[in-house]
């Protein structure tokens, strides 16, 4: 159907003009036609009546004397009027005196019958009955039957002419309208074009050209004004943005410089401090030995101050490391009880200093824990020292218990406590209750911030509940089995070579040097490849036929048949011609290698990472895996799913964290691609929820986000996700390539990990 609204204003104007003129023309042609036909008919009737009168007059005498012949003769004069088909003269009694019938007319079935005077239409013919009178005396009636074909002809001619005029006029109207509509449409179309240029090119410097002083001109003026304003705003905005970016860069650089400076400075400070502490201890011992007891307290003070200073420096170093994202986890399995007792004994002195009592309640089922021992210890130590710092003549309680997969460490004191506002700033670096606190209680104010970071890094957290004047309770919750996903594979014991999947995953290592073979085999096994070895060219060719490797690494310098010959043979055989070959050699002769058909060329000593990357690239797509895509944008989901499916993976999608958790609960995916900014449950929450379940922790996560990550964001994600890809960092293709490699790697890892676990069980 023709939808008027879909068309350009040009077409609309033309159509409107044509419609208007067409309708007006149609009405006038029709009215003129009707009027003409009516006039024609009236005059025809009048003519006929006059004719009837003449005939009547001429037949008066025939009527008087009943003379049929005369009457008939009179009627014969009607021959000159071809439209009259039948005529008759009736006498005053209605009896027929004479009839006339046009030549060639079929004989009427029956004679005409007199009817009332006047005219009427019957079966397409006009019938006229006209009285014959002499004065008031009625003599008879004249009757005509008239063919209306003239009228029909006229009407037909009118319709034809009307259509011709209409079509002609419409054509003229079309030509005129098509030209004249430009007066109105051109400025509008120009304006539309300008808006398109503006919106497509973001070019606010263009201006629409004003052509008239009407409403459109007014519109164009206003539009240009708006463009001017936008241009100004855009310019201002760009300037501000540039300034902001500069400031941001400067700030980032400054932060970086600060962290770097702090790290360096701390390191530089420690060296002389070690000397001060060491020598003060030495002097103390010497003073004790030499009986110089007076000097001992002073030396102790020097030693204490030095140690305090060292602690401060260590804290500063930690915080700067954390902020720079350089803090790493070193996981190990340890018994909790000895560790806790160790910390308690270390802090006992500190606790007793302000006459506090320390109560330790260890749950009997504590058992072992896998975590970063140093960081757990430091976190707990920080809480205990913090408690003893702000408590005098009170009790400090340490509760340690296991809560399912969680280890809960709680430190309660009866100290000064904190107000609600203070609680809010509790875990922020460099902020204590207030500035005076530092003078009164000492410390760096970094302890709690460090504690929180450590706990979060390990997938747990620290919380506080406090009331001013009554004391505070700090609770650390840590997973009993901390998993550092970044080091997942390294943490796993390498799989036995025969447990590795062979299909599409086999590398044939060809080298005459046994140690080089062994090295490569071990390394590639560790990377998850199944490895077959061959020590000579012929052996290699046989192995290729037997195991159909996915990739071949080929040493060039071999006794007997050298690498080049093997390569040539391989490429000659259609069965092995398609297998990618990586040449490994000390001789750098890339062109020769490529000419012979080598796919890649690496020089010895082999860069392991490069080799892995090359082999991964050449290997056929990874074993199909299940990938969960979590993103609130349907376009992004679709794009990623498309990309994944093209690589042979199956993908499920979720539009937010809530839905994603539901899906994970039903079926554990091999990998999760996660957006951060989502409604309901966002990426951060999702990660923290996911990491609470031990069996879900192993699921690798790749974050794809458009959000510019703050340091805090980085810290939240650190240790929990495999990789963060910034949507803005890449163009689409690069993102896809990167993502494909990552996903392949992750799925492969989680697969091998799973296989490994199963085998171990």
């Amino acid at each position, binding site marked *: 159907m023709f939808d008027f609204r879909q068309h350009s204003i040009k077409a609309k104007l033309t159509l409107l003009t044509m419609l208007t003129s067409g309708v007006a023309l149609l009405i006038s042609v029709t009215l003129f036609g009707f009027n003409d036909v009516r006039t024609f008919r009236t005059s025809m009737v009048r003519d006929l009546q006059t004719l009837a009168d003449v005939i009547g007059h*001429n037949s*008066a*005498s*025939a009527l*008087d*004397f*009943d*003379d049929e012949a*005369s009457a008939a003769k009179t009627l014969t004069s009607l021959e000159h009027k071809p439209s009259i088909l039948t005529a008759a003269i009736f006498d005053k009694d209605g009896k027929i005196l004479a009839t006339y019938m046009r030549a060639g007319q079929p004989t009427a*079935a*029956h004679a005409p019958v007199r009817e009332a005077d006047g005219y009427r239409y019957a079966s397409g013919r006009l019938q006229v009955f006209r009285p014959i009178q*002499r004065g008031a005396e009625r003599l008879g009636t004249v009757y005509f039957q008239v063919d209306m074909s003239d009228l029909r002809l006229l009407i037909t001619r009118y319709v034809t002419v009307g259509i011709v005029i209409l079509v002609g006029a419409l054509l003229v109207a079309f030509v005129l309208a098509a030209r004249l509509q430009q007066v109105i449409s051109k400025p509008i179309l120009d304006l539309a074009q300008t808006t398109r240029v503006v919106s497509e090119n973001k070019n606010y410097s263009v201006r629409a050209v004003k052509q008239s002083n009407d409403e459109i001109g007014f519109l164009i003026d206003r539009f240009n004004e708006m463009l001017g304003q936008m241009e100004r705003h855009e310019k201002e905005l760009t300037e501000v943005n540039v300034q902001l970016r500069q400031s941001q860069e400067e700030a980032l650089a400054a932060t970086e410089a600060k962290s770097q400076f702090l790290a360096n400075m701390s390191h530089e400070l420690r060296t002389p401090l070690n000397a001060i502490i060491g020598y003060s201890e030495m002097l103390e011992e010497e003073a004790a030995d030499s009986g110089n007891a007076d000097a001992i307290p002073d030396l102790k003070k020097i030693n204490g101050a030095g140690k305090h200073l060292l602690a401060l420096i260590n804290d500063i170093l930690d915080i700067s490391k954390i902020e720079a994202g350089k803090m790493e986890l070193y996981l190990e399995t340890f018994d909790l009880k000895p560790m806790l007792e160790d910390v308690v004994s270390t802090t006992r002195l500190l606790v007793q200093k302000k006459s506090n009592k320390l109560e330790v309640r260890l749950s009997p089922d504590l058992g072992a824990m896998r975590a970063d021992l140093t960081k757990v210890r430091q976190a707990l130590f920080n809480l205990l020292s913090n408690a003893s710092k702000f408590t005098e003549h009170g009790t400090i309680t340490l509760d340690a218990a296991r809560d399912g997969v969680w280890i809960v460490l709680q430190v309660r004191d009866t100290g000064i406590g904190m107000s609600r506002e203070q609680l809010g700033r509790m875990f922020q670096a460099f902020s204590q209750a207030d500035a005076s606190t530092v003078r009164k209680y000492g410390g760096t104010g970094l302890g709690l911030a460090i504690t929180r970071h450590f706990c979060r890094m390990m997938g747990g957290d620290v919380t506080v509940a406090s009331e001013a004047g009554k004391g505070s309770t700090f609770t650390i919750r840590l997973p009993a089995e901390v998993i550092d996903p970044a080091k997942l594979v390294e943490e796993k014991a390498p799989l036995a070579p025969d447990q590795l999947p062979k299909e599409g995953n086999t590398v044939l290592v060809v080298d005459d040097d046994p140690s080089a073979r062994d090295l490569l085999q071990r390394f590639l096994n560790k990377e998850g490849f199944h490895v077959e070895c061959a020590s000579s060219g012929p052996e290699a060719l046989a192995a290729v036929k037997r195991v159909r490797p996915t990739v071949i690494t080929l040493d060039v310098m071999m006794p007997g048949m050298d690498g080049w010959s093997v390569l040539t043979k391989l490429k000659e055989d259609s069965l092995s011609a398609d297998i990618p070959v990586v040449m490994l050699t000390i001789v750098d002769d890339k062109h020769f290698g490529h000419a012979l058909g080598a796919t890649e060329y690496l020089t010895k000593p082999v860069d392991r990472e490069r080799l892995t990357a090359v082999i991964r690239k050449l290997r056929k797509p990874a074993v199909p895996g299940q990938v969960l895509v979590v993103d609130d944008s349907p376009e992004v989901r679709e794009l990623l799913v498309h990309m994944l499916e093209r690589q042979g993976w199956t993908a499920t999608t979720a539009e937010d964290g809530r839905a994603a958790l539901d899906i994970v609960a039903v079926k554990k995916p091999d990998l999760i691609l996660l957006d951060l900014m989502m409604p309901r449950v966002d990426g951060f929450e999702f990660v923290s929820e996911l990491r609470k379940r031990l069996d879900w922790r192993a699921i690798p996560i790749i974050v794809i986000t458009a959000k510019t990550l703050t340091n805090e964001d980085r810290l939240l994600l650190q240790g929990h996700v495999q990789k963060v890809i910034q949507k803005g960092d890449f163009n689409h293709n690069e993102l896809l390539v990167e993502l494909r490699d990552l996903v392949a790697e992750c799925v492969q890892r989680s697969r091998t990990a799973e296989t490994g676990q199963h085998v171990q069980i």
Partner: protein
Amino acid sequence: MRSSQTFATAVCWPAFLKKLAALLCFRSLALLALASSLVWPTELRAQNALQHEYEIKAAYLYNFINYIDWPAETLPAAGGTITIGIIGENPFGSAFENLNGKQIKGRTLAVKTISSAKDLDACQMVFVCASEKNRLPEVLSQLKDSRILTVSEIEGFAEQGGIINFISERNKVRFEINLDAARHLGLTISSELLKLAKLVKS
């Protein structure tokens, strides 16, 4: 005519009705003819036809007035009387009953029998009856100088100096006119009338 009409109407009828109707029509017509021939004596029928003929002739006499212009002095003023005189044995019977006293040309028609020459003065038209056949020359000579329209039904009347004479043509009443005679008397006869008449000369 009648049978064709019957046929025409019968065309529309179903076939069996067509036969029946044709039969019935023919029967009834035949019966009617038979009955009338039995009931009315032939003489009576002839008399009846004669009466009808004179009714027509009376009407014609009346109609002639419309087509004749008399010289002004012979016609009485409007509102006067136009008189038709009957010479001889009047055959009209009651045929003039309807016409006598009728208005024509703004005057009243009167019909009277002429018994003496004096009576002729008031007449504008005279009808010379068939009874006067033998003394026609005498009658005509008597009317020769008058301005009176002479009408008769005697054969050769117009040729002998009469103006209009009724004749019979295919069983219809027609008339012949001697235009010279009329002109001679100063009477003008309308061409309308002339075209209906058979023109004769003296």
